[in-house]
C-alpha cells in the first residue's frame, strides 16, 4: 500500500537519506521522532505534496512523482496538524460532504445521507453545527471525520490527538482500528504515548536521517 524505496529528501540540507520501508494493507504504523527531524515532511511525501529528490514513493500502487496529489486523494486521507487549515465550509455536514464530492463525485444522495449519518454518529458530531463555533477538539474531530468519510485506502494522520480529550482519543483509536481490520493502512505521526498504546501498531522512529523500527 505504501512503499518507500531509497528515498532521500531535504530542503536546504538532507532531512533523510535512503529511507526504505513498506506498509501492507491492514497494517498500522506510528512514526515518532524529535521535533524538526522531518516527520511531517515524510508524511507529505506519501501523498505527493512533496516529491522525493532521490528514490521512489509508491502509494496505492501509484508513483507519487508521476501523479498529482489531487488525483492521489482518491486513495489517501491526509490529516494536517492544524484542523482549521483543512476546513473549508460553514457547517459540519457541508464540510464532511465536501471531500466526498471531490473524491467520489458520483455518490448518490441516499448514499451520502447514509455516510453522513454513520460518521456523525461515530464521532458524536451534529451535522447542522457551524464549525467555527465549535471547540478546537471538535473541529479536530470534524477534520478527522471529513477524511474518514471518503473511505481512503491509506490514512496519513499528523498528530491526530492534539486537542482531543481521553474519550475522543478512544473514539478515534476505535475508528482507526476498525478501518485497519477492514484492510486499510495507516501511517500516523504521534507523540501521544497513551494513544499509541491503545493502537496495536508497528512503531517507526525517524532518527539520524533514517527510519528505524
Amino acid at each position: 500500500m505504501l512503499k518507500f524505496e531509497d528515498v532521500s529528501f531535504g530542503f536546504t540540507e538532507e532531512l533523510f537519506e535512503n529511507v526504505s520501508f513498506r506498509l501492507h494493507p491492514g497494517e498500522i504504523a506510528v512514526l515518532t521522532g524529535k521535533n524538526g527531524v522531518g516527520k511531517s515532511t515524510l508524511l507529505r511525501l506519501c501523498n505527493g505534496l512533496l516529491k522525493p529528490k532521490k528514490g521512489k514513493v509508491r502509494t496505492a500502487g501509484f508513483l507519487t512523482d508521476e501523479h498529482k496529489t489531487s488525483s492521489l486523494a482518491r486513495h489517501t486521507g491526509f490529516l494536517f496538524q492544524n484542523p482549521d487549515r483543512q476546513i473549508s465550509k460553514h457547517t459540519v455536514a457541508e464540510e464532511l460532504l465536501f471531500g466526498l464530492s471531490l473524491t467520489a463525485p458520483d455518490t448518490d444522495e441516499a448514499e451520502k445521507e447514509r455516510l453522513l449519518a454513520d460518521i456523525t454518529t461515530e464521532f458524536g458530531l451534529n451535522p447542522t453545527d457551524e464549525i467555527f463555533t465549535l471547540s478546537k477538539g471538535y473541529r479536530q474531530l470534524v477534520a478527522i471525520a471529513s477524511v474518514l468519510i471518503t473511505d481512503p485506502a491509506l490514512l496519513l494522520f499528523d498528530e491526530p490527538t492534539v486537542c482531543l480529550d481521553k474519550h475522543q482519543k478512544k473514539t478515534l483509536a476505535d475508528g482507526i482500528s476498525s478501518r485497519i481490520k477492514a484492510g486499510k493502512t495507516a501511517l500516523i505521526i504521534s507523540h501521544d504515548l497513551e494513544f499509541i498504546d491503545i493502537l496495536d501498531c508497528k512503531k517507526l522512529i525517524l532518527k539520524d536521517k533514517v527510519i528505524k523500527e
Partner: protein
Amino acid sequence: MGGLGYFPGDSFLHRANPILKLFLAIILVTAIFAIPSLIAPAAVLAVTFLLAVSCNSGKWMLKIIRSMLKFSLVIFIIQTLFIQTGDTLIPLFWGLRITYQGVMFSLGFVLKLIASALPLALVLRVTKGIDLADALNETFKIPYKYAYAVASAMRFVPDFADEMKDIIEAQTARGVEHDTKGFVKKARLLAPICLPLLLSGVRKAEVAAISAEMRGVSNR
C-alpha cells in the same frame, strides 16, 4: 529565503535606521509616479534590485518579480485590448486592434506596478516590525498603539501568504485540483480558500490583540 517577511542579516540595509529605509522607499515609489517616463520605473527597479543584492536577497527579489509577472501579463493583455486609440500595430478580430499607444501605456502601467511594490517589500525584508514601530513612535511621536498596529499589520502579510499556501496544500490533499496547470481553473479554485483564510485571519488578529493588551501595549 522566500516570503514577504523579515529575513535576518547583517548588511548595511539591515543595520540602517528603519525610518530612513521607509523614507527612501517612499521617495522611490513617488519618483515612479511623479516622473512621466518609463525610465523612472526601470531605474527604480534596477536600484531596488541592486540594494536587494547588497543584502543577499537578489534571488528572493527575482522570485517576487517572477510571481508578479504572471498577473502583470494578464493586466497587460487586458489593458492593451481596452486601449483602441493610436496607430495600429496588429489588427485583430471583430474590429479590435493592438495599438502602439495601448502597448506603451500597458507596459508603463505594469512596470510601475512592479517597481512600486518592490521598495516596500525590501524594507519589510530588512526591518523587524517591532523596530519600525519603535522608530515611528520615537521619531514621529506616533502613539505606540498605532505604530504597533502598523508593524503588526506588516507582520501579518507573510503570515497570510504562508497560511494561504498551507490551505491550498490541505485542499489539494483532499482532491481540489490546485495542482492543475490551467491558469483559469486555478484562479477559479481560489474562491473556496477565502473562508478558511478569512476566519484564520480574524482569529489570529484577535489572539494578537489580546496578547498585546496583556503585555500592556496600550499603556505605552
